[in-house]
């Protein structure tokens, strides 16, 4: 693994190299800030039989990239939109694309603020329970050795996640948690959607920096699902896609 520590990370580089050299002094992170790169494959989502698709492709890149920051302490995390990508200014914004997610990992609660069309929702619910299947596959993400786990969420969505045990906080981007360490990579292969950490900073995070969002219409996930299904029932395939994205 000393072969290819990606340099992208690290303020932490020296720490990690040190950690390599002397394993007994391994430093485990229990607070810090992670920058995630979220990528959507816009072309894959297009309807191949729609004659307008070819034209839409000219108007947008294959991948839409957005950035999110995840602030974490030992038992809490806050995921929120990060730096702006000006390439997206011409691309249509979709519902629930700029979520703020607060996770209380000890108590299994989460508060997510989601802008879905005209309505700002505040989803207060328990953390998503995911039945993770641990595998033996590993890869290095942002300088951290990660292990792969697979799961199915929301009855049908296949999730591939990579977590590191070098970070003690059992959190992750959006609603993905529940592995014995920090999730630094998530892919929903059939939704053509990925989140990968590109930078991990070992910075001090004050408790006051991680607070649940307050604004928005208070709902739970089942209520949100029902609301969206009622409103988008005549939207066909597009509507189902929006509902699915909003509930992730």
């Amino acid at each position, binding site marked *: 693994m000393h072969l290819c520590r990606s340099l992208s990370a690290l303020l932490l580089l020296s720490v990690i190299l040190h950690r390599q050299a002397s394993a007994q002094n391994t430093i485990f992170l229990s607070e810090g800030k992670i920058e995630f790169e979220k990528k959507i494959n816009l072309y894959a989502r297009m309807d191949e039989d729609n004659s307008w698709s070819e034209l839409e492709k000219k*108007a947008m890149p294959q991948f839409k990239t957005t950035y999110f920051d995840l602030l974490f302490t030992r038992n809490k995390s806050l995921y929120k939109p990060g730096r702006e990508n000006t390439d997206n200014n011409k691309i249509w*914004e979709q519902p629930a694309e700029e979520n703020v997610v607060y996770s209380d990992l000890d108590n299994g609660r989460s508060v997510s603020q989601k802008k879905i069309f005209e309505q700002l929702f505040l989803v207060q619910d328990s953390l998503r329970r995911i*039945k993770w299947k641990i595998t033996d596959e590993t890869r290095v993400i942002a300088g951290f050795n990660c292990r792969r786990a697979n799961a199915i969420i929301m009855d049908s969505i296949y999730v*591939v996640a990579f977590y590191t045990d070098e970070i003690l906080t059992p959190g992750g981007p959006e609603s993905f948690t529940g592995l014995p360490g920090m999730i630094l990579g998530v892919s929903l292969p059939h939704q053509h959607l990925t989140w990968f950490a590109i930078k991990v900073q070992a910075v001090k995070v004050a408790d006051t920096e991680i607070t649940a969002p307050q604004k928005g219409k208070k709902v739970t996930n089942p209520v949100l699902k029902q609301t969206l299904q009622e409103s988008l029932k005549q939207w066909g395939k597009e509507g189902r896609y929006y509902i699915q994205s909003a509930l992730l």
Partner: protein
Amino acid sequence: MPRLITLLLLGFILSYPVFAQSVPANQGTATPSLPANNGPSILIKGKIKDTLENKTLSNASVLLLRQTDSILVQYTRTDKAGNFTLSHIPAGHYLFLVTYPAYADYADSLIIKDTADISLPPIALILKSKLLEEVVVNGSKGAIHIKGDTVEFRADSFHTQAGATVEDLLKKLPGIQVDRNGKITAQGEKVQKVLVDGEEFFGDDPTLVTQNLRADMVDKVQVFDKKSDQAAFTGIDDGQRSKTINLKLKNSKKNGYFGKVTAGAGTDGYYDEQVMLNLFKNKKKLALYGILSNTGKTGLNWQERDKYGQSFSGMADYDENTGNYSVNVPDNDLETWDGRYGGQGFPTVKTAGLHYNDKWDDDRQSLNGNYKVMQLGVNGSSSTSSQFILPDTLYYNKERQTFHNQILRHSIDGSYEVKFDSTSSVKIMADGGTDHKTTGSSYSSQALASDSSLVNQNTRTVSSLSDNRIVNSNIMWRKKLPKKGRTLSVNIRENYAQNTSLGFLNSATSFYSAGVFSHDSLIDQSKSYHTQNTLLDSKITYTEPLSKTSFLSANYGLSVNNSSSDRSSFNKSSDGKYTALDSLYSNNYQFNIFTQQGGLSYMLVKKKLRFSAGTNLGFTSFHQRDLLADTTGQRKFTNWYPQASFSYSFTNQRRMNLQYSGYTNQPTVQQLQPIRTNEDPLNITIGNPGLKPQFGNQVRLSFFDYKVLTDRSIWANISYGFTQNAISSRVDVGSSGQRVTQSINVNGNHNFNANIYYDFKWRAPDLHIGFFTELNQSRNVSVVNDLLNKTNSGNYQFGFNIYKTKEKKYEINVHAAATYTQSNSSINTGICTDYWSYNFGPAMDVFLPLKFQVHTDFDISLRQKTPVFTTNNNVVILNAWIGKKFLKNDALLIKAAGNDLLNQNIGFNRTVNSNFISENTYSTIKRYFMFSIVWNFTKAGTPAPTNGN
């Protein structure tokens, strides 16, 4: 390498279980307690230490997985002393896994019986670096030497079994190995990433996912060294490469045809026969159609076009600089959006069309072509009542017309686009066509003075035989330069149109003075017209990014627009032949415009805000030459083309937009040519060679708000426009009732428009309700009998729509609108035209059992009478049909329809402008019944399943 050893080690300790299907829901997350299982549960205790130094390891991860499927049941971390505790463990077979950074994983199976807590002996982990020294790893063997950066394998060349996975395919490729854990080695190096069409492929877990990527879906396998993400991100090559495989998928296999046959026979000689067919093979599409009909159908409607003709999307283009889409619909007077004849009279059509398109070379090249032929005959009659308002008096005019027109049209168009690489492309478009037209009309008219005394009477026949030819072409080259946002494009356009016509005018007019016959005027002429227009236009555009969000764009172009119009009128000579040139109604004119134009514009594209502003400056010179009088003239104009727009998106569904544009319209050769046209001898037009370009300004503010979740929307627009040197008219009406019209430039024309649409869903009864209101006001300045005439017109409309649908049961739609129109002219303020008109249209579809469907719609128009419009024009049109669907997929429809059941339809038009008000009614299709059969057929090869949703 270390990972390999980990695996080896794991392999020794246990082999990972074969994953099994479905799992009972019971999952431990984190250290907090597991939901209590029924029955006793167990506590596991242990300690983790380092083998070498015999030190305890804190923060080691301890995972308990279910043995059958590796689902994580519970996990914890060791404390400072290396101790851990897992509590509330239900009895069962488990896999016990310990991980620690830089140490090899420890795994063991663990059977828990519900009898006693377990205290494990201390577990010692081994540093991976230590392991490396002890295990000799075989180097890769049989490395194959491959040239170039990329090695590409064509998947079809390697035989795989039906249903084989991608891994099975990769195993067959030389230089590629796949181990039993799915790890891939290419050319001796471990493959870091597998991409599918550029997107990372993670490999599907067959126990979780049923959709899998199959070998037969792969077209090509490309193996290459990918630069590190860091290098790609910063642009600085750090020299790191990772072996990458990209799987290019095949285009979905499609091969088949579909089509539609309609046969309809009606009462009163009505018929409607249509055949449409679409043949497709992969990306090739060949479509054709034929229509024989006299019910108004003259071509494909927009839904049919997508399937059986040139789709609208195929005519559209996207401009990367402005972010705008544009649709280049060829200018065609006979082709309408709904594929139906829109004019007066009874149309009889025979038409056919052919469409072909194809894409190849990985979609880098595309070709598109169309051919159409149409023979359209239209016969009919119309009558017009008009009122001319003069300063001191007014005239009423009534005219009846019957007409017989025929046109034979051939048209062809095509486009070819080639993308040389990701940065440059060329698109070539061309179209051309011929029209052969014969027209014949006969008129009779009568003009009355305000006291109803006869002023004049006219009967005439006008016929012509004309041929048009057009050839248009356009070539566009676009190039993206290395700096992001820097682009260059060149566009060259050519238009050519030529018209030749030969016609005859035969007219007899009697003039009366104070109701008493005064004199006659007879015209018997032949007309020979020859007009031609050639346009050549070039434009080069360069865009330079000023920042990530702002751009400056410069353009420069030259344009030559040459027109000639040779119009000759001949009277009969003594030999009875039309050889004597009538110079009053003859002229040969050339009008050439040369324009040099350049400009700058600035554009800002932020997430919520967009702004652009700029102007072009054009130097235009007119060369006008009268060949008959042998005079020439040259005039020069400086024209501005300013544009500005500002838009703000409060959210995706709420936007406002403010736009300004200034534009110049050049006069046409018909407006300039100093010739009198006497096709209607009581309505003569004269050209004006001194006409200047008009400059219009339009400001528009619009607002749009759509609430998706509550289904409520608001559209609102306000626009205001004013024109300098507006091309208007000067009208002289003599005491004989004869009008002479000439185009002149005026100032003071302006228009104002405001509208608002409000739609919402009334949730409880599930009704969609919409209200709308629209307001139009305009002022037109003209000169009437040497007096400046300002006409103020207004048009105010409001109405509503109600829509309700119940899937597979019924659909009801009601719309209603009321319109108030008023107009008055400054030359005679005593006369004010104002009237109301109402429109009401309920429609209903009911879906009955046994695949019966009943449709009915009303269109009720009520129009108030005025002093001019004295006839009753209230019309109730009722259409209805009943149909039944048969066969699989409802492929066959049998339908009986009644058109205009009450036999009330009339063609109708009211025009209120300046000092001229008229009402036109014309013959149109009325009541008939038709029985028709529609058969949809299809044979399509099953497309290969695609990866993903």
